[in-house]
């Protein structure tokens, strides 16, 4: 009797193990299909960028190139060498670098100081000020485009990198302040109180105590701002034209207004170049990237 029971129990276990295995496989297949869905466009972009136009017309989206042809990469980066109507990325890539570095640094520093002042030196009305910043992260930029373009004109910095730096610092400020405020609010007030009793002032506490423990949120903020500014198209397209444009605007011009003959291989090489910096940041620091996305949106 007991022996019999043990046997059925073992069989049951075996059966459920088998069932479990099948479930696992179904799970992996579904996850695999989704992985294919996400990875395919990148694969298509890469193989297309190495093909000649002849190979593109003859093969299909997924066929491999005959050889690693680097011509379209060269054309996308350096242009074809003639002066009129030749669009390429080199100039605009460096425009974006010159824009992104100062804009990210300034908006992050201001955001950190704001977040610190709003959480550790509470004053009357501070929560209302925070609310203004918070709501600022949601506004559709169409509602400020027209006055902004006039203001840049008045200031004499329209169609320049400086103008774009100003725009990105101003509208990035809402995000950086929000991130830092949400981080500093979780840090105990006791440390700050103790330091104040010891006679430390506003900036001393900020530089000696807060900044050294801020590395996690600063990384998140920098990555967020970098991605936002590098990927921006609306501000770039509205406030700059010609040689001053940032990379996304140049990419779009290249794809839409290139000569009558479509050069899909060059388009794809250009798209990869324009997406490369943010992709690298994401692959190297994806953890922080995700944390930024969730920190910025989930927490009010």
């Amino acid at each position: 009797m007991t022996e019999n029971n043990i046997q059925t129990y073992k069989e049951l276990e075996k059966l459920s193990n088998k069932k479990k295995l099948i479930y696992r496989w179904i799970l992996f297949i579904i996850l695999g299909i989704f992985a294919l869905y996400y990875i395919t466009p990148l694969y298509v972009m890469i193989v297309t960028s190495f093909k000649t136009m002849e190979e593109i017309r003859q093969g299909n989206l997924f066929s491999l190139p005959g050889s690693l042809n680097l011509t379209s990469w060269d054309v996308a980066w350096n242009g074809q060498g003639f002066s009129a109507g030749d669009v390429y990325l080199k100039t605009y890539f460096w425009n974006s670098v010159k824009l992104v570095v100062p804009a990210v640094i300034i908006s992050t520093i201001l955001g950190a100081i704001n977040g610190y002042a709003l959480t550790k030196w509470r004053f009357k009305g501070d929560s209302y000020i925070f609310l203004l910043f918070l709501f600022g992260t949601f506004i559709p930029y169409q509602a400020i485009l027209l006055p902004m373009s006039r203001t840049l004109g008045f200031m004499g910095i329209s169609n320049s990198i400086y103008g774009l730096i100003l725009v990105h610092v101003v509208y990035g400020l809402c995000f950086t302040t929000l991130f830092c405020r949400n981080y500093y609010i979780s840090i105990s007030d006791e440390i700050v109180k103790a330091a104040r009793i010891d006679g430390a002032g506003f900036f001393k506490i900020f530089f000696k105590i807060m900044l050294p423990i801020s590395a996690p949120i600063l990384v998140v903020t920098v990555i967020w701002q970098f991605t936002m500014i590098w990927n921006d198209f609306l501000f770039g397209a509205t406030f700059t034209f010609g040689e001053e444009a940032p990379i996304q605007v140049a990419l779009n011009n290249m794809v839409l207004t290139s000569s009558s003959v479509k050069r899909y291989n060059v388009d794809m090489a250009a798209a990869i170049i324009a997406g490369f910096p943010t992709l690298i940041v994401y692959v190297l620091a994806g953890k922080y990237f995700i944390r930024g996305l969730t920190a910025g949106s989930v927490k009010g």
Partner: protein
Amino acid sequence: MYWLKRNLPRLVIAPSFGVIAWFVYGFIFWTIYISFTKSKLLPKYEFWGIDQYFRLWSMPRWHVAVENLFIFTILFIILCVFIGIVLAILLDQKIRAEGFLRTVYLYPMALSFIVTGTAWRWILNPSLGLEKFAHDIGFETFTFDWLVTPGMSIYTIVIAGVWQSSGFIMAIFLAGLRSVDDEIIKAAKIDGAGIVSVYTKIILPMMRPVFMSAIVILVHLAIKSYDLVIALTAGGPGISSDMPAVFMTQMAFHRSEIGLASASAIMMFLTVSAIVVPYLYSELKREDDRK
């Protein structure tokens, strides 16, 4: 000196506060005011009333844009949330390659909408894209020309948009699932609940705030969507995939209709506010309740 010390935090905030007050809120009020004037190429400041809004809502093109926004937003939300939840739940089953899969699902989020649009414009190309691939593997009559078909091109924007953003929704749902106490799941399993009912009856209802955030973010993204439309269809063919954000820029910078453009921008602003204000109110209330 004492005054300075006492007010230092305020003084530090003041410049940023001033900048936000002017460049965000001041500018919004300027746009609101201009939407009540006759401004064409240059702003005029005499008050005209709400005629621009009447003009706006009598324009067939604006109706196309609003209708497209509606289609796009609904499909975009449904697909992103569905894919996001499914992937988050599957990834939460203690998968071995989780880190790798998460990276793969999320990388499109790092790419700009212009890069996304450029890639999908090529993939969906009617003569050399997916259609050609289908012909090559034997489906001779397969046609896929949504990109150049009025009435269908809006759906290509949905396809590319979902590809770009669904991984992000997965990430916030996964973060939500991870914050659910394991004990609750164990207890439910001991009580004999199956894995499916554990999720549908216990875990998903607990994630209501996550649903809320996901939907608010997606609506907000959808209303702002401009880059993707420009890169993928440029609002075409014709104006068939126009969206409010594209309409606004067209009117403001190509048609010299500043007043009308401002009116459309304010419509967008009001729509976002109608969704975001109650959301922020409930979020902040939750934060206060926790204290």
